Structure formats: C-alpha cells, structure tokens
C-alpha cells in the first residue's frame, strides 16, 4: 500500500501569486536587498543573464527567474503574510537573537534577508533557523566540488521528506565525482553546476533565507556553494504515503473505484486525468500560518463563473489561522453561516465527482494532506446526489433520487410523527395498528417521549461506538449490538417493539443520505423535531418544517441560493430532485452563471435521427453542409 511518490512542483505557489496580484504591478516597491540582486557581485550572473542561464532547469523555473523582480515584491505583499501572530510567535518562537550569531529567527521572519556570499555564514544561518542542533531530521552535508580550485559546498534537507537515492545519485555523485570541470573560462561555478552537474528536473535559485527554508521544509534539497549568495534548490521530494484506495464513504457499485488520498499531487493528477483540457486551472494557495498547507483551487477557465472563483479565492486567502490541515477545517472557515446545521459546502472523496462538478461550473478545493475535496457552492439538492446517479441508466438514477428524498424525510420526521400521532392524534392511526401499539405500550413504564429518546440515544451510541471499535469487528459488533439491544429492550419492556422498527427505519434513512455532513445534520434535526412533536404534536412539527424551510430558503452558499434551482426557480436541466436522461441535460446549472451555459447540443444523440428517418436525413445533411459552409472562410 505504501509507495513513494514525488510531490507537486513546488514553484507553483509562486506562479500563482504572480497571477494573483497583478493589480499591484504598478507600485513596485523594491526591497533594500533587491538592488543587490540587480547588481550582483562579481562572479554572479546579472539578472539579464539568468534568463538564458536557467534553461536547464525546466520551463517553469525560467518564467520564475525572469519574473524575479516584480514577483519578489508581490510575494511579500501582506496578503500572504508569513509573519506569525505575536502570541504564537512567542510560544513557537525561533531562537532568540544573540549577538554572536548575526542571522537569527527575526531575520528569518524578515523577508528581506538575503543570503550572503559566505557559505559558512549561510550554513550557520540556515542551521540556526532550522534548529539544527536539536532538530534530529535536519541533515547538513558539507563537501567539496573538485574543481580547480576546490569549491566548498553543502546540501541541506529534511530527512524523511526526500529521496535519499536521488540525492546520492543526482546531486552528490555528479558534484563530488565528475565535477572536474574547467571553470577557468567563466569562473562561474554556480552556473556550471546548474547547467552541467545537476540532473534534477526542477532546480530553482533562491536568494533569501525565507524562500530557501520554505523549500527545505517541503522536502527540497538546498545546495549552497561557496562564493554565491544564491541557493540552488533541487526537487528531491519523496515521502511515504497511502496509495490510491477505494472510496470509503461514497461507495458505488457501478463507476470508478478510486478515491483521493492524502497526497495533493496524486489527487490533482486524478482530477487532471479526468479533465484533459488545458483550461483546467489548478491554483496553489497557502493556508495556515504555521502549517503552510498547499491548497489547490480548481476551476475551468472560460467556463466557471469568475466571480465565484474570486470569491472562493478571497475567502481562502483571507482566512487566518495557524493550522489548517484538512478541508473539514477549511470548510468551517469559509462557509457562509456557521450556525446553520445544513452543510454549505459539498465534500467528496471521489475524483470523478469532483471532475463532474468542475465541468458543471463549480469550484473545487483540495488541500494537501486531506483525502476530501470541497466543492463550492453546495445546494440542498446536490447533497442528496450520488455519483452513481449518473453512472446508472436514467430510470434507475431517478428512482434512487426519489428513494433518497424519501429517506431524508423519514430520517428527519419519522420518530417525531410517531410521537405526535400516539400522543396527540391517535384518531389518525388505523384502529388495528393503534390497538397493537397500545397493547405493546401497555407494558412499558415510560411515556413515549422517553422511549423514543432512549432508543434514539442508543442508536447514536452504537454509531459512535461502532466507529471506535477497532478493525473488522467494528461493523459486525455494531449490527449485533443494535439487534441485541433492540430485542433485549423490548423483552425488558423498556421500549415497545413498534418503536424499534421506527428507530431502525430512521437510522437506515440517515444512512441512505449520501452526504456525510448532511446525514449528521439530519441526526440533530431529528432530535429537534422529536422535542417539538413531544411538546406540540403536529403543530410543532409543522412549525419546525416551516422554520427549517425558511432557513434553507434564506441560506446562501457562496452567493448561490441554497435551494436553487427549485427556490428560486432557475433554468436547469432537471437534475435536482429528479434526474432526466443524460441526453436531456443540455445546460449547466443556471444558478452558477457559468460562462458557457450550454453543455451539449439539443440533439446529442445525433446518430439516431440520421439513421432512422430517411426523409429527415437529407434535411439534416443539408443543415450540416450549411453549417460547414459557413465555417469555411
């Protein structure tokens, strides 16, 4: 199951930032150290040279180098603030500055500190920032590059995040063994090293501590060379992780059987594989001041509503918290109304589902380390949909949808309705049923409400305990527990048998709701309705339904009404409560206002008409010819 895998290109974050804040381009504010790069000391190539020099390092680093000037300024814009909040800074502080060691934590925090030309000094600073003496997984390896004369060099990396073989073979071996280069011509070791000695496919030059540290912490190996204030960072990332597994909470019988895992790179690859269009944009943002988690924002350029993308990006970048490590946490920071029970984002562990939503004009969010992606915005109906609805033929999919709505209603209301009926409105129960309810209740010493609460709470207990019961016995024990508990409770006259039936149906109903968050909300709603029914009967249930509907209708998820396309009514392909045949789904959800509303032509099964009707055949042909003629210049 565990296979090593290399991570995402680590420069993407920088590229994103340069896209991101183009508005501040005009007011370029160079840092004091910027001039040093513009006018580098002897032996270091000028900025203009870097452009040509960098060709060996892949295409994207090129871009990055040429953009170095303005990019640098943007990188330090307050939007992506690296500076820790004061309190946290104190508790997690880098070592306090001392007079002896000139570069210190404060300097590291200060973005503008660039590397010096003295390798020892650089090494010292980096070691200091990384707490080399006490941090066991920080590795520093010093060596000489056997040029004439020898040049001192060192690599820094974090053990466990890197591929050791790769460092040995692709960095140390060429540098130490075959580096007999004649550098007398240019005296430019750095450039020679980069162009001729580093077979790594992603090599980037970093000129300041912060960037270098950030890279080292993400698993990149940092190469320092004597006499240069540039650190080469070579991608050597590789760590142990889970391989792609089957979905655990969104299983389907028919359809793809792969789920996201904890590695962002492979997750994005899964989506990219299902969306082979250059317009699929994956932007990388950083979230969490301490965790600095990579957060991928996915959308389709030219399709997704740019306002939606902007809003999603705004909420993510304007979220300030120290440690955001899962989409479940991020979700709580970016949702509209945290006090409403209904989930306002859709989480999925299925790449196919994510791709399908992206194709409809939704925005996706993936976090490094989280096997669940977020889809924005969520509507009430999308929470009742499952990927399988589309993989099955339409009557089956439509049937499943109806069953699920029924399950939702049952799961929320059934115990409350039972309570209201037996306590307030016995005349509504068929006589025979009433008599059997009465007969079964005669031996129970508690009022119905207590009975209902006992059973509901036990079910919740079984559910909660079932998750914690280890391994294979978990599910079995849960079922056995439920059965035995129910049977014993009836035998002991604590509850009536009919109530066991009701609670069982209710629990099943909650499980039939495909979205985990929604199922959770239902479980809580159920208790609210039970209380309402116990106090006010059907009147209370009616109040509850009315209030819940009002809240839902009033709710927005990222600017999209929660109940759309039903309330407010908007044009749609009939893919909310019901599911029409796929060839009828001609437009994308209108409430998202995608840039391209049409997803397929009116006649998507074009073969059918051509073959069946001979008379119409010619007409269609004529039409096609007309269209092709028009297209021709």
């Amino acid at each position, binding site marked *: 199951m565990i296979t090593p895998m290399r991570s995402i290109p680590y420069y993407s974050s920088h590229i994103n930032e340069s896209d991101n804040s183009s508005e501040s381009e005009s007011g370029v504010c160079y840092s004091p150290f910027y001039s040093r790069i513009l006018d580098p000391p002897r032996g270091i190539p000028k900025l203009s040279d870097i452009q040509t020099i960098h060709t060996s390092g892949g295409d994207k680093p090129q871009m990055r180098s040429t953009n170095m000037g303005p990019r640098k300024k943007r990188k330090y814009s307050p939007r992506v603030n690296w500076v820790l909040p004061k309190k946290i800074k104190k508790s997690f502080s880098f070592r306090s500055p001392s007079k002896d060691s000139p570069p210190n934590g404060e300097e590291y925090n200060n973005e503008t500190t660039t590397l010096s030309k003295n390798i020892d000094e650089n090494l010292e600073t980096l070691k200091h920032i990384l707490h080399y003496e006490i941090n066991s997984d920080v590795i520093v390896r010093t060596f000489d590059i056997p040029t004439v004369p020898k040049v001192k060099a060192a690599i820094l990396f974090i053990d466990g995040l890197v591929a050791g073989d790769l460092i040995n073979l692709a960095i140390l071996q060429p540098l130490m063994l075959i580096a007999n280069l004649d550098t007398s011509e240019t005296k430019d070791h750095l450039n020679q090293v980069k162009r001729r000695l580093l077979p790594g496919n992603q090599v980037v030059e970093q000129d300041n501590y912060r960037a270098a540290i950030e890279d080292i912490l993400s698993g990149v190996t940092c190469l320092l060379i004597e006499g240069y204030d540039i650190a080469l960072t070579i991608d050597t990332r590789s760590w142990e992780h889970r391989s792609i597994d089957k979905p655990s909470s969104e299983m389907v019988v028919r359809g793809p059987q792969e789920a996201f895992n904890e590695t962002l790179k492979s997750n994005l690859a899964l989506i990219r594989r299902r969306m082979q269009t250059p317009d699929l944009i994956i932007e990388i943002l950083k979230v969490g001041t301490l965790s600095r988690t990579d957060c991928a924002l996915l959308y389709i350029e030219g399709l997704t509503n740019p306002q939606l993308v902007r809003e999603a990006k705004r909420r993510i970048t304007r979220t300030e918290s120290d440690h955001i490590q899962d989409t479940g946490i991020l979700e709580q920071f970016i949702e509209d109304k945290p006090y409403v029970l209904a989930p306002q984002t859709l989480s999925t562990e299925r790449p196919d589902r994510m791709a399908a939503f992206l194709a409809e004009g939704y925005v996706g969010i993936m976090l490094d380390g989280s096997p669940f992606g977020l889809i924005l915005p969520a509507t009430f109906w999308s929470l009742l949909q499952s990927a399988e609805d589309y993989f099955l033929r339409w009557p089956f999919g439509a049937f499943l949808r109806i069953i699920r709505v029924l399950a939702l209603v049952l799961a929320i209301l059934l115990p409350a309705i039972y309570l209201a009926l*037996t*306590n*307030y409105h*016995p*005349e509504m129960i068929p*006589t*025979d049923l*009433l*008599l*059997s*309810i*009465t*007969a*079964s*209740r*005669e*031996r*129970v010493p508690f*009022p*119905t409400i207590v009975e209902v609460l006992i059973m509901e709470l036990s079910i919740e207990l079984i559910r909660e305990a079932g998750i914690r019961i280890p391994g294979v016995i978990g599910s079995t024990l849960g079922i056995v527990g439920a059965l035995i508990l129910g049977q014993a409770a009836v035998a002991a006259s604590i509850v009536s048998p009919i109530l066991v039936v009701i609670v069982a149906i209710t629990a099943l109903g909650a499980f039939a709701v495909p979205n985990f968050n929604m199922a959770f909300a239902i479980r809580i709603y159920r208790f609210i309705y039970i209380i309402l029914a*116990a*106090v*006010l*009967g*059907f*009147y*209370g249930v009616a*109040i509850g339904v009315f209030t819940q509907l009002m809240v839902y209708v009033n709710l927005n998820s990222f600017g999209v009404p929660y109940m759309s396309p039903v309330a407010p009514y908007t044009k749609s392909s009939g893919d909310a409560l019901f599911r029409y045949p796929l060839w009828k789904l001609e437009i994308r959800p209108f409430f998202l206002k995608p840039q391209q509303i049409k997803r397929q032509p009116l006649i998507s099964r074009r073969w059918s008409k051509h073959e069946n009707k001979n008379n119409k055949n010619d007409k269609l042909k004529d039409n096609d010819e007309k269209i092709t003629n028009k297209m021709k210049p």
Partner: protein
Amino acid sequence: MYYTKLILVVALLSLCTVTTGGCWGRTEVDDLAFVTAIGLDRGEDNSLYLTLQVTVPRAVAGGEGGGGGGNNNKTSLITTMRGKSILGLIDLANTFIDRRLSFVHGKVLIIGEELAREGLTPYISELVRFHEIRRTMFLIIAKGTAREFITKNKPVLEQNPAKDLEMLTLAGEKTGLIPTSHIHRFLVEMQSLGEESLVILAGVNEREQSKQENESNENKYEDNDNILHSGLSPITKSDTHYIAGSSPSVGGNPVELLGAAVFRKDKMVGEITGEEMRYVLYLKGAFKQGITIIEDPFADGKFIAADLRFGRPVQIRLTRNGSKFHIKILITLEGGLIGSQGEEDYTNPGILKVIERQLSTEIEKGCNNIIEKAQTLFLADIFAFGNKARRLTTTWQEWLDLNWPEKFPYAEIEASVKIELRRTGLLFRSPQTTADSNNP
C-alpha cells in the same frame, strides 16, 4: 446587550407559541380506552340505556399476555349504563373503566328499534356536536335492543368485534343488500325534504342462538343434523328476500346485517328486505355489483345467476304537471351470466335474449313493487327523487312550499329496466346429462 434582549424576545415569543398553541391534549395511547361501538336503547321512564363496547388492545393485538381467540368477553369490555344523556354517562363509565374513554375510534352507532321508532334527533345532535365523535361512524338499527346486538356479536374471523362490524358494512355495500349509512348521511337526510334515510338493519339470528345454547350440553354434530332436518327459516323466492335476523343460515357469528330500516324524518317507519334494498339502489343509481337470480325460463325449478352492474348511469326524468309529478326511470344494467342450473346453450343470442328479458321483467317488477311500498306503506321518498324535484323549483321558499313529502305518495312513477348480458361464464355449453341421444 442587544443579543441578550434579542434572545429574551425570541424566548418569550416561542414561549407564547408553546403555551397558547392549545395542543395540550397529550395523552399516551395506553392511557386511553377506545370505544368502538356505542349502543342506544330506550329505557323505562323515558331514560336511556347506553351500551359501550371498549376494545381490550392486549387481546385484540394478541400480545404476549393475551392470546385470546375470538372470544368477545376477552377482546372487549361491554358495559351498559342507564341515564338521561349519552355524554353524561361517559364520566360515570370512567368510575369503573380504568382508562379515559375515547371515542375517536368509534366505528358504529347501534340504535335499538324502539328508540329508532321514537325519533333519533336528540341523540344524533348530541353526538355530532361532540368533538370526539366521527361522523363517519356507521349507523345501524338493531332489531331488538342494541345491547343484545353488541353482546351477541361474536366475530369468528376478526378478533376485533368493532372491526367485524366495519367489515360487514363494507362488504354489504358491495353486495347491495344493505344501504350505506353514516351518521353524517343520516344527519343530512333526516333534515332534507327531498329524501328519506335508509339505515342498515341488524339482527341476531335466533335459530343460531338456540343452536348455540344447545351446543353447551349436546354433541355438536347431532345438533347440526337436527337443525338441518327441522329446517331453517322458510325460504323465499329470491335468496336475498330476508331481513336481518331471519336469514336461513346457521353457524358463525349470529349477528347479521341485512336489509334496511326505513325512516321518515328521524323516525323509523318500517323495514325492507335485502332484495328490496337492492331495488332501491337500482333506482337511486347507487348500486355497485351483486348477484341476481331468476328462475330459468326454459326449465321450471332451475335457476340462473347473473352478476349485474350498471351499464350506464341511471336516467331519471321527472316532470311536473300541475301538482302531479311524473317520474320515469330507465335502469340500464349489464353483466354476465355466471351460473345456471339449466342445460341450454346460453351462447345462443336468442336464448340469452329471453333470459335478459326475464331478468329485466323480474327487476322491473321488484322496482315497481318497492316504489309502491314506499308510496303507500312508508310514505317516504327513500329513492331521493325529491332531489330531482328540487331542480324544478327556483327558490328555497318555492321548494319549501312544494312540500315534497306530501307530493311523493301521489307521484306517478314508472321504472323500466334494460339488461344486456355480455358474458356467459366459463362454459360454452352446459353439461348435458338428460339428452344422451344428441351427444354421441
């Protein structure tokens, strides 16, 4: 501060909805005693006997403790009280019935014949005002007393005696041998000038009773033989021409619903048999389905059974000529020949025609007989012709002045029946046993 106020206001408002909601009738179902049948009888000194049948849920549902068969004593509690009003006695009942009486599951209201002949207005109006009484309760007139009927009712198939009555009434509607009578219907009809009520007639089969009494000390089989030899009640020409309590049957529940009690306003004035009830339903156009038998026109003493239903809605044409009313009714029935004792080839259209004619004359005769009976004996428009007559008037006053109940006995009513038999059952040809020469 603002939020504190807000929360306070919201809390107060929701408290208002809770306290003023008025839904404080919370009772557990096992704290209620469900009355399923109410019986009313005339007592001495203008008093009233109220009989309540309260179902025992444990016995009916067959819970662990119960296990009782169809024994009436176990599945229900029957109590009779004497008093002045129905509702006044409910509280009295709760002095010895340990659960609060609830009428929400009342199925039948049974009224003794004596009380019915005196008039039902005071009791019906007392009941329908009470919120627990459903107007969909069936109304039944018991020959003899209601108490007797309720106590004698011992269902065999059903465990629940009230459900047994409910099923009987529903089944009766299918056969057309009893009318549909709910409290609501009776309430409307007893106030209406245009029609009079027919109420389900119920009775206890006396022969069955004697048989059961014998059963206790004698051998069952012997006793059955005695009954068959001594003969059941005398039979009539049609197999349904009986009123409740007198049908020639033995075994099962001694209680039967058959025929109808005829009312004029709120007073019972007579009884009609099951067969007559069916004719009334033909004339009203409310007949659903039923098996009619006639004597085979080709063979004496052999009978033919036909399953009939309406071919098209009944056509009633009512005309007024001064103070004289003419009513012409055309009943169009269709159906199939489902059984025959004769040996004819009924697929032959000519033979079928003869049978059709025979059937229609029989039914026509029956219809005209019951019309005559209603006009002369009961003086009650049980066919709701008055509702047609009302269409001839333009104002309420005019309708009141018309005084239809007075006019009805003098109306000239003529019913004609058209019958078409569409099917002849599962046989092409009847089995031939007497005509060997024809069959090789």
